[in-house]
């Protein structure tokens, strides 16, 4: 990314860290100063130090719940992407099916998640199945739209080439159409990864009995603000990690693919 030489001293790392994250540190210091000086009740706003303390001294609570949320988000993402890809392929293979599937997918995806959760919970039960279902629905649409477009964006001239080579429909699909969709598929993955975590947490928050979303709601209602803030910190870290790893994966694939 940046034109950096191979050898970097620890001092350089510190400098980079300061130049990039001084804002975050500044906010934390200001926050701590504000709660200390004004003496606001910790039920309203906790001390940042207490939040860090809760994270450090109760790792088990966070780890178990974060693990569950992350697992559900990942499983839902994989299943949703697989489903979206399959439907896109079916739509590609038949113009009639495409005419049914594209508007259906569009209508389905326009329904807000919050509205879907109670319906789905009644159907699947007030547990992890609904959380998984929500993540699948959220991840389905980008995979469907982007894969469908990718299946049609073939390299220039390649379509004629395959015809002249006498390729069958199947060979054309395997050697040309499907690989052409890979860069678009990676875009869908990048776009779906953070919302997958977010929607898993939202579902847990609204109807779950475990996971980060549930942990947040529970601690907020019990006025355990340190725990609630700690949960937010973990959730943010997971979302950022999901996004950056999806970006890295996309970059890696594009280097090979484009």
């Amino acid at each position, binding site marked *: 990314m940046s034109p950096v030489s191979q050898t970097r001293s620890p001092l350089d790392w510190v400098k980079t860290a300061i130049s990039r994250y001084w804002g975050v540190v500044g906010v934390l210091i200001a926050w701590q100063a504000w709660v200390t000086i004004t003496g606001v009740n910790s039920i309203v706003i906790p001390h940042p130090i207490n939040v860090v303390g809760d994270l450090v001294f109760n790792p088990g609570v966070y780890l178990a719940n974060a693990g569950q949320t992350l697992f559900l988000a990942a499983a839902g993402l994989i299943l949703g992407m697989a489903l979206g890809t399959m439907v896109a392929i079916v739509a590609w293979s038949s113009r009639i099916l495409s005419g049914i599937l594209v508007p259906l997918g569009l209508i389905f995806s326009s329904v807000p998640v919050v509205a879907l959760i109670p319906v789905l919970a009644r159907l699947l039960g007030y547990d992890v199945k609904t959380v998984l279902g929500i993540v699948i629905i959220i991840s389905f649409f980008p995979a469907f739209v982007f894969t469908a477009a990718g299946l049609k964006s073939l*390299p*220039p001239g390649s379509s004629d080439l395959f015809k*002249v080579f*006498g390729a069958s429909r199947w*060979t054309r699909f395997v*050697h040309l159409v499907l690989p052409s969709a890979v860069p678009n598929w990676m875009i869908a993955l990048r776009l779906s990864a953070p919302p997958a975590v977010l929607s898993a947490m939202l579902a847990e928050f609204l109807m779950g009995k475990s996971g980060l979303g549930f942990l947040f709601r529970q601690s907020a209602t019990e006025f355990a603000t340190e725990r609630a803030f700690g949960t937010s910190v973990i959730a943010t870290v997971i979302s950022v990690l999901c996004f950056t790893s999806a970006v890295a994966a996309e970059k890696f694939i594009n280097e090979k693919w484009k």
Partner: protein
Amino acid sequence: MNAPLSSAPATAPEAWAINVDHVGKTFTLDGGKELKAIDDVDIKIGQGEFVALLGPSGCGKSTILRLVAALEDVSTGRVTVEGSNPTALSRAHRLGVAFQDHALLPWLTIRDNIALPYKVAGRPVDDKRIAELLALVGLSGFEKARPRQLSGGMRQRVSIARALVLKPDVLLLDEPFGALDAVTRRHMNVELQRIWSEQRITTLLVTHSVEEALFLADRVIVMSGRPGRIIKEIQVPFARPRSPDVQRTMEFHHLADELTLALEPEGHH
């Protein structure tokens, strides 16, 4: 070389490698307007003959190539390749083609791009043949490179190697060097001439470069602007293999002048 002239006595159509028999092609544009791309074009190409189709852009020369490649259907007349419908030849994987667009698949290595026709034909990949062709087009050692890492000229050489890999009966070249700069293009022509002289596959080349047509082909057919018609045909006398020096002879210059004049109708310059 006993390349038959189109003025040769009429023979059964099966004797020709490519027979474009009084073909016309009309395209229907958006809005229902009809565009006549080519009109009554008659081209006969013998076995092992290299014919260049020369004409201004938009004269329908690429259309003729696309008809021979079974990428378009004729409106009038008939096209046969090796005595049968052009589709039969592409289905049998006996057609080689290189377009102006190199059409290499960006996710495949150079070796895999050249191996693609084997995969499409469902045949085992012959690595010896691929190595041989890479050497022929001067790209040994680039097996693992990817298309985007190569220059424009190198990509076109790969696309020619790919066209040749299955030892096709007919080779179709549509401005294969059209997107290259003049120096690279001349260099590529010298190489293509050398490669072709070793293989002698029936070839139809579409180009708008007089020098390219003269240097490469046994016979040059000149077409007029839309609708495309054949207006001139000359037999190229130079012996093979041709050295680049041929292009500096008086005879080459005379023929080039003759073709250039044919390309430019009076009053248009």
